[in-house]
């Protein structure tokens, strides 16, 4: 089963535990600036939005990389740091801004789903981020809407 991160912004409280978990997993330090997931605080709209790579099938970043540093590992687009030359072309190609250059290492960084057990999803206290079957990402939304469907008996002619 292919799995993906599913984000429900309605459940996010903006605690940024996902950023802490991500940076700790990848760098051994607590440093949101080096996290592969970022929570945006739209304070005046009362909304927190965690945002990260959705692992596009036809990944722009992967296709434009001139040195082939980004590879597809069972659906996950992974940056091979040893090959990456820090040219940043992928950061221009990505329509979502979720692959970024990291000054500390001179390489680009993006979500790699932590090899199959994403630290952000584990750390999220409200289940705003869950790691689940990619083919039924909309299941909970469907169910919520389905529940609102009027099932009262219809009058017959």
């Amino acid at each position, binding site marked *: 089963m292919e799995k993906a991160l599913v984000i429900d912004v309605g459940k996010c409280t*903006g605690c*940024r*535990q996902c950023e802490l978990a991500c940076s700790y997993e990848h760098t051994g*330090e*607590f440093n*949101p600036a080096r996290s592969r997931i970022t929570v945006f*605080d739209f304070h005046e709209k*009362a*909304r927190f939005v965690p945002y990260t790579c959705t692992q596009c099938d036809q990944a722009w970043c992967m296709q434009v990389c001139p040195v082939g540093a980004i590879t597809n590992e069972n659906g996950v687009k992974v940056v091979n740091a040893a090959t990456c030359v820090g040219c940043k072309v992928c950061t221009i190609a990505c329509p979502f801004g979720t692959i970024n250059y990291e000054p500390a290492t001179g390489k680009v960084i993006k979500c790699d789903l932590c090899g199959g057990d994403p630290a952000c999803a584990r750390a999220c206290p409200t289940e705003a981020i869950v790691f689940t079957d990619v083919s039924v990402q909309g299941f909970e939304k469907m169910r919520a809407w389905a529940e609102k469907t009027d099932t009262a008996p219809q009058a017959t002619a």
Partner: protein
Amino acid sequence: MAWARRILRVNLTEGTCKEEPLNMDWAMQYLGQRGLATKYLVEEIDPKVDPLSPDNKLIMTTGPLTGTNAATAARYSVVTKSPLTNCVACSNSGGYFGAELKNAGWDMIIFEGRAPKPVYLVVNDDEAELHDASEIWGQSVWFADDWIKEKHQEPMFQIAAIGVPGETGVLYSAVVNNKHRAAGRSGVGTVMGSKNLKAVAVRGTRGIEVNDPEAFEKAVAAAKAVIAENAVTSQALPTYGTQVLMNVINEIGALPTRNARDVQFEGANDISGEAMHEPRRSDGKPNLARNGACFGCTIACGRISQIDPTHFSVKDKPQYHHASGGVEYENAWALGADTGVNDLEALTYCNYRCNEHALDPITTGSTIAAAMELYETGAMTKEDTGGIEMKFGSAEALVAAVDAICEGTDFGKLLGLGSKRLCEKFGHPEFSMTVKGQEFPAYDPRGIQGMGLTYATSNRGACHLRSYTVASEVLGIPEKTDPLSTDGKAGLVKVFQDLTAFVDSSGLCIFTTFAWSAEDIAPMIDAACEGDWSVEKLMEVGERIWNMERKFNLDAGLTAADDTLPRRILKEAARTGPAKGLVNGLDKMLPEYYELRGWTPDGVPTGETLSRLGLS
């Protein structure tokens, strides 16, 4: 490790920013944040210094856990000598500012002197620089926040700032970060304003490591599980915020009402946490937009509200139609029950204004309540109020009074004195519900006896956050005691004071102690920091901090005579509720408290006590 081990010293007079190493000997004795910054303060300033003179210092400080993934490790504090109380001041705030400062690689920033003209500080990791603030001086916190981000093209800045009241000497200005999180009490923002310092903007990308990562992760995970399983921290606080208390405290007859003339408010339910969820008649939307967390917090008690756009307070003011920080319990009480106003939307507007202009909402509301009593008894007239009819229960008067403080009108300047100086000026000092010049918060010491001792002995003037015995007396945490009895409260207050002092020095939020005991907290500090940090050692650190603060206040000129309560609380019995007929029994608790503290009957730490704590 855990500590950044670096201090940024900013001399505003000379315009210099210098790095110096953190004194690790002191860190081992005072931990961080409240304890460690206060140690620096007492070593560096004369206790008798005029708080608003350039000789006072102001310290923004993080704890060793700030910025780590320990639940609630968001906290930072502002430490200085208070212009409201003349005591030591330490005001604590969450949001995202503290973690950013720590991530920039600084344990604290010490501000000294006074800038010749208004400035703001920008910290970008190692780089620190003062900038001309002339374009944001005279503007609000919200304006300054947007302006600085725009000016420097840095949307990732976390910013702490003051508003106009802090610039113009209102004695209870806060320092507000992230537009709605406040280091709220004791006028720390007023000191900032006296230094011509408008704001501090920080961007940090250096990262934080801990001493023993494996042990730390284990301790953090265990502690998070405790929060997730506790009914207060996993259900009550996220759903209702601290506002879960409004109806509870009203029912037990400890909700100071109309300047503490009463202990129960008939309109409590209208301004409660439950009411914030109710759809409004006007637009069908609830006041509460959602709950929000500070950095790293797995509780998320924060209230984010949206005012009814048709409400009289904002009808013609679209700049307040967006969401922002909603009322927490203390704010709803001070602006609401204490003024007799049961209009939730008006309270929310006033709360926005307190955030926009960095005012302490507790002192703001309580001072307005005192003014209402002065007005109703005829001591204050419309000539003094600029025509405002300052009657208890009037939402219009409340809104106009808060606007007056923000705008600095003549009446606003009067209110800006705080209730103690205001009531003295109008010949009725007994109308001021203060201890050491600071207004007490939302728990009436007639209905919760331990809070009387808490207020009387708090080192920063009346305050609930120095020993929250409400936890035991009302909520039964860690065990239930009788709120109407003074028995055992001296010991309870001492334990809560020492516990709180070390928690406030760690980077963690005191609200965790609804769920966590010291045994849950110590392993996280022990794993993150060098040295051995057992529960016993941390409680001793707390006791050391408490006595250090006490000694500073005594050296500043305070005496045991200041460890008292307003006459009303000691002489006028509660008129309704479970506490009917009771006053606060401070005289039954205070001597025992002094004795337990190892202080003389005059409230002075003995030589033996100071020596035991390494404070001689």
